[in-house]
């Protein structure tokens, strides 16, 4: 079971080619972070994964099914996609109605609807907002409502587009926990983000994009310590990684703990 991009390219109707010759396989249960400059093609790439864009060249296969053979709505029951802007997505009068919408649309039993809503609410930490109108709660919380609404479909794959934008420390902690919990259930989470600390802390696998292409695919350490990749995709290391590079100490350090150990080791402790 996997999402496969096979030499996939996409050209918009106005003639602008946003991505070219992407090859990528994302297996069930993987946590993948996608990084790169604005305009590198990240959003277009993930939109091909859930069928919003059908590749203009090559193929995209989701669990053995070619996306060209299904409607976007059909593929979306396998691959959930949370838009960057929650306001493009939310339309119900209350938070709970918003989350229940898809399970009901898919004609699930009442018990199942309830279970799914509870689960989605628990993962996103929005229990105290359930009866509120989504437009009366802060933007950063509304982003969690949008995530919960997609979580309720319980898709094997979940795509998050810039989930950390505008989130505070607590919001980021909720996101981290959510991603881990989904992975523990064998589901995949694919996340586009500009937040390098978040990438290093949460993703086993990082895909770097630049100039419409995938330029690197590997562990966070492989990506952040490949100077060529960092330069081309205009990303940066974690703050601690940057420090290690400047000090020229340690073996490709990325995290605080590693730096503490390295300094302790050097001080003979």
């Amino acid at each position, binding site marked *: 079971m996997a999402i496969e991009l096979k030499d996939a390219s996409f050209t918009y109707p106005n003639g602008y080619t946003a991505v070219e010759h992407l090859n990528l396989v994302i297996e069930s249960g993987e946590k993948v972070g996608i990084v790169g400059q604005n305009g590198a093609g990240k959003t277009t790439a993930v939109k091909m994964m*859930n069928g*919003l864009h059908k590749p203009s060249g090559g193929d995209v296969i989701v669990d053995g099914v070619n996306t060209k053979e299904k*409607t*976007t*709505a*059909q593929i*979306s*029951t396998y691959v*959930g*996609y949370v*838009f960057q*802007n929650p*306001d*493009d*997505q*939310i*339309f*119900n009068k209350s938070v709970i109605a918003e989350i229940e*919408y*898809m399970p009901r*649309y*898919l004609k699930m039993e009442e018990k199942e609807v309830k279970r799914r809503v509870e689960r989605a609410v628990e993962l996103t930490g929005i229990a105290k907002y359930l009866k509120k109108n989504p*437009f009366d709660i802060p933007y950063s919380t509304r982003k969690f409502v949008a995530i919960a*609404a*997609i979580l309720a*479909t319980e898709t094997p794959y979940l795509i998050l587009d810039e989930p950390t934008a505008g989130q505070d420390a607590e919001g980021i902690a909720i996101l981290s926990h959510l991603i881990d919990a989904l992975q523990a259930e064998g589901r995949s989470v694919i996340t586009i983000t500009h937040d390098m600390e978040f990438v290093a802390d949460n993703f086993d696998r990082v895909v770097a994009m630049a100039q419409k292409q995938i330029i690197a695919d590997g562990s966070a350490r492989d990506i952040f310590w490949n100077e060529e990749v960092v330069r081309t995709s205009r990303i940066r290391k974690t703050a601690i990684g940057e420090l290690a590079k400047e000090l020229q100490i340690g073996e490709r350090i990325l995290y605080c703990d590693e730096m503490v150990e390295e300094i302790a080791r050097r001080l003979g402790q």
Partner: protein
Amino acid sequence: MDLDFAYSFKNPQLYKNWLMDVNPLNKLNFCAVMAAVGFILPYWWIGYAMMAGYLILAASAGKFGPFFKMFYKVFLLVGAILFLMRAMFTEGSTILFSWGNIHVSVESIFYGLRVAGTVVAFCAAVILFYNITPMRDLMYSLERVGVSHETSYICLASMQAITDLGESSKVIMDSQKARGIETEGGLISRMKAFIPIIGPLVLGAISNTEEKSIAMDARAFSAPVKHTFLRELRKTPAAEKAVIILIDLALVAVIVGRVIWL
């Protein structure tokens, strides 16, 4: 940076086309006179002559395509209906043929042609004006003759809002599809998808107006000073003013003539 572009604002903005560069208010004046004359003069062919004239004018402004695209629809739809209604139901003495209660006569045909010609010519004058006058140019000229800054902003922003609404409806449609709501296919699934799309669209538009007014406020929109213009149009040439005065006088003459000879 394209400094030529930046410094191009130092001079009046020119389209380098005689008609496009005419003062928007003068274009408005001309089109209004033409529309009025069509109603005043009783000849059946007058509307058609005007339409032919408009086609030529549109072509000389380089706007034949967009003009014709709107014009032919009005011509076929409004023109044909008006013509048929009048031709069939107006009484006349020289009956050409009858079909039940419907009698088509030479008089009714000419009357139909006249009514259809006048109305379509009126519409065509509006379409012509729309196509040869960019909205922002019109607003600039109106502001210059004392229309308020606010009015001008509201008109221009509403035009943009329509475009934006179209754009955001596409994004919202996508996000609904991405959620698993079927928006493709038959009428029923389209209808079902309608509510999820209209909701965020309306709410988004409402919350945007509030923020937009703050944003414009931050741009000193209501600053208590006389404001300046980056983009200016040329000064209206004397000859153009003279022509417009002649056109207005012609309208007066037509009205007077019509009153006297009626």
